[in-house]
């Protein structure tokens, strides 16, 4: 890790100890990214989060945020938690039961003139869609509202990095997607650097741009979600993992007559069933490799909306011995197809070969 890349990153973390909680972790949180720390419970995710916030100091620890040293066990230095520009949303939100929503957010604002203070509180409450709830106490709010208060309070710190500990674990399943969407929009609008600790792979698939997989305190895989989703298998993700491409796409147009939405993910253009997002909005799409059919000739009479000209980059073994994972390029955009070894042979799939990728509109997961 060079000093230059440390300075650019929102966060550079290196933690090591053998007891009481074994840790051997090193990763970088790029500026403006959503980095997911994914792993089963007991994998040390929360300890990593606490170490970033300065609530816990492992034996060997180095935490640098945007060039500012927060923890350096080599010199015994540790910036106290209250002086780190860090916003934390705790798993159960940790709202102060005796303070109103307004006081809660105001508490995290620190010292500033009364006028500026009130207007900043109003701004944050509007941002977290809490208007009208300013004078309520946490006990009278719903789970989703409480989470938004915790988020507004964390943002009040104007954090260099926003830390979220299992943010959706205690929210109703039906509400999670809406809250994920809100978080993603906020993150884009404010250009936040976010670290999210989760054991729910949905959070990774729908939110994260970077992924760090932890198991028993060790990093078993790390990289961008886009690059990692293309892998046939990722250590620590068995059971969750299915080769796929995850891309950010722009809403190009809606076709109300055919009830389709046209999405552009760089060079990859896809039609999907209408999604609720305005034109030019950014959505996360995910195309699983098993949903992509390959053809050497243009077929006719299919109920198919997406017939994409692609080029084979390489063919690699998949988790199952009879299957192959075919890496494709659509212009400069990656796409994956999981096919049988037999199909690879009969279609003559080899690096450089042109091929048609067939994708059912309904098999594209689009997450606004």
């Amino acid at each position, binding site marked *: 890790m060079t000093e230059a890349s440390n300075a650019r990153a929102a966060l550079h973390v290196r933690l090591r100890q053998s007891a009481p909680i074994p840790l051997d972790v090193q990763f970088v949180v790029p500026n403006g990214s959503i980095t997911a720390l994914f792993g089963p419970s007991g994998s040390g995710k929360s300890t990593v989060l606490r170490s970033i916030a*300065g609530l816990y100091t492992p034996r060997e620890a180095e935490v640098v945020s945007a060039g500012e040293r927060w923890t350096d066990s080599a010199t015994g230095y540790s910036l106290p*938690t*209250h002086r780190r520009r860090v916003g*934390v949303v705790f798993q159960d939100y940790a709202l102060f039961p*005796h303070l109103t929503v307004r006081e809660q957010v105001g*508490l995290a604002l620190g010292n500033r003139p009364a006028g500026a203070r009130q207007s900043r509180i109003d701004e944050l409450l509007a941002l977290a869609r809490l208007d009208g709830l300013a004078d309520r*106490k946490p*006990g009278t709010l719903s789970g989703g509202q409480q989470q938004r208060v915790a988020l507004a309070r964390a943002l009040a710190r104007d954090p260099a990095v926003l830390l979220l500990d299992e943010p959706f674990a205690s929210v109703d399943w039906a509400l999670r997607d809406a809250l994920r969407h809100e978080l993603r929009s906020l993150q884009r609008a404010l250009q936040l650097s976010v670290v999210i600790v989760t054991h729910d792979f949905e959070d990774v698939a729908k939110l994260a741009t970077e992924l760090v997989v932890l198991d028993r305190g060790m990093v078993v895989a790390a990289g961008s979600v886009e690059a990692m989703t293309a892998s046939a298998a990722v250590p620590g993700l068995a059971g969750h993992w299915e080769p796929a491409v995850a891309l950010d796409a722009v809403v190009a147009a809606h076709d109300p007559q055919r009830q389709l939405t046209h999405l552009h993910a760089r060079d990859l253009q896809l039609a999907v069933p209408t999604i609720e997002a305005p034109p030019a909005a950014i959505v996360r799409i995910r195309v699983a490799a098993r949903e992509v059919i390959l053809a050497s000739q243009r077929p006719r009479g299919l109920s198919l909306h997406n017939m994409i000209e692609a080029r084979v980059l390489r063919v690699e073994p998949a988790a199952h011995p009879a299957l192959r994972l075919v890496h494709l390029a659509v212009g400069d955009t990656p796409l994956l197809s999981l096919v049988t070894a037999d199909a690879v042979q009969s279609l003559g799939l080899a690096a450089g070969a042109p091929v048609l990728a067939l994708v059912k509109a309904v098999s594209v997961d689009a997450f606004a």
Partner: protein
Amino acid sequence: MDWTALGLSLRLGLVTVAVLLPLAFLLARWLAYGRFKGRGFVEALVALPLILPPTVIGFYLLTAFGQQAVLGQFFQSLLGRPLVFSFEGLVLASVLVNLPFAVQPMQNALAAIPGNLRDAARCCGLAPLSVVRRIELPLALPGIATAVVLTFAHTLGEFGVVLMVGGSIPGETRTIAIAIYDRVQAFDDRSAGVMALVLLVLSLVALGITNTLARRMARHD
């Protein structure tokens, strides 16, 4: 009715609360949050006045307050007169005897504050003292109120220890509890009855106020 004795008791109660509360809060906080060996021993030491007979406590205090003891000599040089049979001696005895009544409710209230609330406060940018002031004190308020009332009421009613270290000097160490005993000894049942009633009503009112306060503060809505 011995108004001087009542006044002295109230004064002793207030001074005891004022001296004991900050000390007991620090001790309670240390016991609630501190990580150290021998916590059980310290807790037992704090709780000792609950089960020790007042005469035993009184005896040890009397010995410690004496002219031969370090503590007694220290106060002799500080006050210019002996600690025994003085108001200051009474305050010191009262502070020690009331330790469990002040420490335990506050320790329980502090321990009941979820740990992640204090973590969250630090993550909100609050310095350690601000965490105490803005989060711990308000959330432990029912426990603090209980500590105040229990200490005050218990000081008004303390008899054995006061008799041992204070004697019964009017205006100096004759508290209302001692005065009642004196009146009964003198077959003055009427005066004893009036004073007993005053003490009863005071205690009842004090407990009523704390219970109401504690319930109201615990609701947080």
